[in-house]
């Protein structure tokens, strides 16, 4: 049977990479429309190659399609060339599998992985012919759901969504779909469905809540309006990762994806508790998959895809308790088939030299470590939990294994940062370069040491101990980057150290969206109407457009970014229970300012509150 295509040949032949839009990939799921009752469009609001690299969509796609009565399809952002044509010719956005318009679906789920995709949400709604605001939608429009890490502060985009799913998708999606089917059969309205959905744990229906503001602009009250709607929403987390649906046959893109490999998720959560890291907090408690489970499912995925690379995915892969056993198994099983193994998120203090020796003979590239800060004081403030000695031992190990390319990631603008902390980054890079020449005898060196230092500017995120911290104006961020650049230029090994820094203005807007409240939705809408889309792409990001929209909305960066929030202020995301408690955040914030470190979950439980979610590897038994 020949699948129809939504776009005519005439259009497909004049756009970049037309295979982004034709679907039909290996392992994509086709169903008979007449045999199913719920149609779900799952969207990653960025271009196909980025969206197809995302594991979360593959998990939900596979899980939803396991149900016979549901057909889940995929949607990505059309690139600007097609965007213009679709607007011009009034072509509705469609899902890849059936090539049917998204507007005809029951649900449109949008994953929110980074703040800079917020204008793309409006692009998706606009091209789909769905009204931007939940309150403007009719019973004929799909129910628009948001999920993913940015849903932990849903407020800046609250108006655009009918509901948010807070937390891991494996727990209550089926309950939501069952409720929908039931209400549709009974002929109930959209509003009635949304009210009932707010009763499912983890589901937040923004239209049922009201925010009031004090004269100084801070939130004075946030509460549910109809009776019976819960005042707090608890994030969802799976108790046992071996028992949830697993994407054994992920969809394989024809167009090369950014991450073009099997992704094996070995664990969720992180034991480390770095104080800047939102993922490290909201994905608690730390849960692992069993070795047997991973062995079996790695095999399924490799067989079903034919990929020649497998990446072990987690926030910190060296913390997986049976990492060595797992790697041994993969190396032995796939040596003949030349499957590469990649191990992202390695910690420099746990650099598994024996492991890397095994993996490296298949492919050798650069090593990436993230010390995050240049001095011990600064690393203690952020609770990075590594010492200078750890860094040098790790680097020496890497050098003696044969690496001579090292990438180092740092942040500038961290709370309490001083000039010496910035200069410390330079001196750390210099001493690592010197260490290379001390460690590796001349005859064994394969060329010069190459160090790449990259800095991003720190963005305070909700549900981190730094959520109350101010940011700095872009000029001040740049001054820090220039200072570091100048300092590096004075080092002995300056020619071996390359330095890149992130765009300061993008950081500002990311910060605005990360901790914004409901009033920010007006700003996002204005930016989109002014032509803003693909803000995560430097070639399309326009800072001035954001500033104009902010001013036109009567809002200011100083309110959202440049002031220190007080500990008793009602934060827009306070109504969500993300696991670790607010009192834990306060405690950690104070310890940070005192430059005190907190042990990781494995060393000692610090009582963050996530243990209530059960299944945590190192959580105390009740």
């Amino acid at each position, binding site marked *: 049977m020949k699948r129809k295509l939504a776009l005519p040949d005439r259009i*497909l032949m004049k756009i970049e990479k037309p295979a982004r839009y034709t679907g*039909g990939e290996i392992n994509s799921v086709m169903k008979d429309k007449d045999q199913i009752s719920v149609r779900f469009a799952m969207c990653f609001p960025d271009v196909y190659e980025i969206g197809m690299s995302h594991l979360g969509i593959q998990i939900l796609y596979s899980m939803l399609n396991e149900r016979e009565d549901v057909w889940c399809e995929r949607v990505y952002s059309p690139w600007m060339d097609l965007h213009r044509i679709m607007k011009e010719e009034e072509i509705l956005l469609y899902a890849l599998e059936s090539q049917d318009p998204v507007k005809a679906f029951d649900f449109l789920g949008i994953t929110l992985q980074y703040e800079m995709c917020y204008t793309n949400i409006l692009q998706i709604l606009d091209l789909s012919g769905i009204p931007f605001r939940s309150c403007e939608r009719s019973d004929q429009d799909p129910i628009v759901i948001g999920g993913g890490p940015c849903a932990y502060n849903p407020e800046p985009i609250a108006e655009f969504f009918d509901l948010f799913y807070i937390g891991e998708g494996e727990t209550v999606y089926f309950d939501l779909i069952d409720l929908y089917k039931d209400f549709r059969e009974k002929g109930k309205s959209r509003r009635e469905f949304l009210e009932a959905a707010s009763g499912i744990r983890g589901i937040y229906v923004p239209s049922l809540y009201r925010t009031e503001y004090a004269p100084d602009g801070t939130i004075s009250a946030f509460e549910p309006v109809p009776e019976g709607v819960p005042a707090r929403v608890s994030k969802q987390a799976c108790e046992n990762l071996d028992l949830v649906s697993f994407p054994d046959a992920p969809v394989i893109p*024809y167009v090369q994806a950014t991450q*073009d490999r099997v992704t094996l998720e070995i664990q969720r959560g992180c034991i480390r508790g770095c104080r800047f890291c939102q993922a490290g907090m909201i994905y608690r408690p730390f849960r692992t998959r069993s070795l047997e489970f991973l062995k079996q499912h790695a095999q399924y995925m490799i*067989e079903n*895809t*034919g*990929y*020649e690379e497998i990446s072990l995915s987690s926030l910190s892969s060296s913390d997986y308790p049976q990492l060595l056993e797992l790697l041994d198994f993969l190396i032995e099983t796939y040596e003949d088939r*030349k499957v590469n193994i990649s191990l992202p998120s390695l910690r420099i203090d746990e650099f598994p030299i024996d492991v890397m020796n095994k993996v490296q003979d298949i492919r050798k590239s650069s090593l990436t470590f993230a010390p995050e800060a240049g001095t011990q004081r600064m690393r203690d403030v952020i609770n990075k939990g590594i010492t200078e000695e750890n860094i040098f031992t790790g680097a020496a190990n890497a050098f003696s294994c044969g690496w001579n390319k090292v990438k180092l990631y740092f942040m500038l603008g961290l709370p309490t940062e001083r000039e010496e902390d910035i200069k410390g980054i330079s001196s750390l890079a210099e001493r690592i370069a010197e260490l290379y020449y001390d460690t590796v005898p001349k005859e064994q060196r394969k060329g010069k040491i190459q160090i790449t230092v990259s800095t991003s500017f720190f963005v305070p995120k909700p549900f981190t101990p730094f959520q109350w911290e101010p940011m700095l104006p872009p000029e001040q961020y740049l001054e820090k980057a220039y200072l570091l650049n100048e300092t590096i230029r004075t080092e002995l090994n300056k020619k071996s150290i390359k330095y890149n820094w992130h765009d300061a203005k993008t950081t500002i807007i990311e910060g605005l969206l990360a901790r914004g409240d409901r009033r920010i939705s007006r700003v996002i809408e204005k930016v989109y109407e002014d032509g803003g889309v693909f803000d995560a792409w430097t070639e399309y990001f326009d800072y001035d457009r954001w500033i104009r929209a902010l001013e036109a909305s009567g809002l200011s960066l100083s309110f959202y970014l440049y002031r220190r929030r007080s500990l008793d202020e009602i934060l827009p995301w306070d109504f969500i229970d993300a696991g670790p408690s607010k009192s834990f955040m306060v405690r950690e914030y104070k310890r940070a300012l005192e430059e005190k470190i907190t042990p990781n979950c494995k060393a000692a439980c610090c009582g963050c509150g996530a243990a209530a979610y059960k299944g945590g590897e190192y959580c105390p038994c009740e």
Partner: protein
Amino acid sequence: MRVRIKFTRNGFVKYLGHLDIMRTFQRCFNRAQIRMIYSEGFNPHQKLQFALPLGVGVLSRGEYLDAEVEDGQDPSGIRESLNRVSGDGFEILDVRILEEQAGNAMASVRFASYEIEFKTPISLDPVRYLEPEQILLQKKTKTGIREVDVKQLIRKMEMNGRILSMTLGSGGENSIKPELIAADLLRQSGLSAEATEMEVTRCDLYAEGMIPLIEYQTKTHE
């Protein structure tokens, strides 16, 4: 052991680029669990050689790929296993064992045959088009635009109803896209290629002596 594989590119997979198709086949061999021979070195890869990459948007009933496999004794078995996993649009038509001394698919190509189907009735006169001594066309190359005499490259050209068939010299320097000739032919009849809807299909590739590539230096089935 080297095998030659003939396959189609039908339907939406015509929108894939050449590199996409290469990756697709690498994974296809893996999913079919065919044991491949890999190149030496840091980054071993399957030894695959495609004949004459096809432009985006062109269909084909005659694409070719040479692959080195550990065990090629059962070509029809390879064909079946590949067809089980190849996905819509890629159908494996034939698999043959290459003779020891056989050249690779890319180097062996001399001619390619095409069909261009016009979506609306059209009147074209290929006989008259071929009358002049020379047919000079502008051809885009890596280094710039070059004028070539395509008359030498057109081995056959005829019109049947809405279908224009042609056999063109192909491979190496002597390649010309069929769309280019079709556009010139349309222009001669006072039509513009941009305004004419057509679908191009490559029918087959041939080695010297117009031997179809699948039969060239390959062993016949027992």
